[in-house]
């Protein structure tokens, strides 16, 4: 029997349409397709932090992330003429980043795991940007330790689960946007997120005991 509040949960990944691309962005795309170098520079400038950040989270290495970012933008300009506004430009670029990162990480992570960024080093360098000043120091330390353990567990997750969780928690994408970026159905995104969180919750429970 169908409950009265069920049915609205699953969203159609194809629901995104040309309306996802605003006028300004569509004009930028059109200029890029005509070979306008200034427009290309604007497009890179608008998205380079986002691309680099996602690449860094997926690969865990800054040099690799930079190299991947360049490859992603080259790919974007080669295929921009085929972009039909089926999603927001940002989501479309996410999709390219994920595909490129998936191809790289299979072999790269096995060979260069030792040179990946240490989370503790990163936190020492950039600090805890999310912690508020009124939080007690011991709470901050606990949060850092929890975060480090969660990220270690996250690093061990399968690529697709880890990517879905990063897109959701770090980049704040909606389910339908994640589905488009991964090229899967929304239901698949939900199941991947659930499995990933179950694994991380088990790690969290182990940390408490």
């Amino acid at each position, binding site marked *: 029997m169908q*409950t*009265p*509040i*069920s049915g*609205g*949960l699953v*969203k159609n990944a194809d629901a995104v349409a040309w309306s996802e691309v605003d006028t300004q962005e569509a004009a930028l795309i059109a200029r890029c397709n005509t*070979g306008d*170098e200034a427009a*290309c*520079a604007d497009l*890179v*400038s608008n998205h*380079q*932090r986002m*691309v*680099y*950040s996602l690449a*860094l*989270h997926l690969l*865990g290495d*800054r040099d690799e992330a*930079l190299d991947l*970012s*360049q490859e992603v*933008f*080259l790919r974007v300009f*080669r295929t921009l003429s085929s972009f039909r506004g089926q999603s927001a430009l940002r989501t479309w670029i996410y999709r390219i980043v994920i595909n490129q990162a998936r191809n790289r990480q299979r072999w790269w992570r096995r060979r260069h795991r030792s040179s990946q*960024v240490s*989370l503790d080093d*990163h*936190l020492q360098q*950039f600090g*805890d*940007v*999310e*912690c508020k000043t009124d939080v007690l120091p011991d709470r901050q330390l606990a*949060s*850092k330790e*929890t*975060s*480090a353990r*969660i*990220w270690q567990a*996250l690093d061990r997750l399968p690529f697709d689960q880890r990517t879905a*969780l*990063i897109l*959701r*928690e*770090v980049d704040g994408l*909606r*389910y339908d946007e994640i589905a488009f970026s991964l090229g899967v159905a929304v239901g698949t995104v*939900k199941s991947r*997120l*659930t499995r990933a*969180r179950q694994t*991380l*919750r088990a790690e*969290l*429970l182990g940390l408490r005991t």
Partner: protein
Amino acid sequence: MIPYVGCEYAREHLDAFVDSELSVDEQVAVESHLRWCRTCAARVEDLQLIGHSIRLGSLAPPADGEEAQTISHVQASVLIRVRAEEEMSFASRFRDMFTDMRLLWPALGATSAVTVGLALALSVLHSTTLERPESLATMLETLSDPGGERNPLMPGNTARYDRLFLKYVDSDRAGGISMPRALDDGTVFESIPEQDATFAVAAVVSRDGRIANYELLNSERSGQARNMHPNDVEMLDAAVRQSRFAPAQTPVGRAVAVNMVWLIVMTTVQTPEPRAIRVPPSVAPVNRIPPAESIEEAPLKRSDLLETSTTA
């Protein structure tokens, strides 16, 4: 009214609740459940803590600093490479296609497989579309086209005309089908040796006046039936094939193919022996009669007579 939901339903939707992906009704229902269910509430706290920990440990670069400058170099590098790619000649691109030869053999194999598959599919398609003369479809098509080459009619057969053409042809007038009429007056038979002969040929005259197919029924030379010489057969075959007819027509003027028995008679006509004319010497000649030698002439020139007859 807030609908009641149990733990089983709530647990299935806790992830979507934390991600704010539920509809308003669902969000309210799960939230009301969390007010009294400590177990589910603890799960939600764990999920929120996981999200917070991930964001806390995020490696996102800050907006300024050395790393931000490094990122800004991406733009310049990309634009340089884009420009370089545009300037790259076609020959260079073509060479680059063969730098990774690992893809060559799979590509060749795939191309060959596709080609073979297409050839097989086309051959199967071709063999299935061939029409066999003994097939039911061919017979039905033949019967549905009276007057065609495969279903010729019989000229002058009024009964058959009435029965078929009242049904298939847009005419209700009575009358028979006209005979096909030879157009070349037998000149094509001049190549056959000059001997008296008779040939009976069963033939079909098509809608365009050609002999569609024929069969030699009988042949006689000089009044005695005998086998045709192979050369005669060849010449007769050539002559029959070159013959042209005005096709048979229905009363409404529609050309139709007809069955025909064609009787070809080749006859040499000679005048009888001249008799001597005796003139009494006492009678003065009134008119000058030419001498007998001048009357006697060579046999008349051979002529070919063509006759047609019908058969049922």
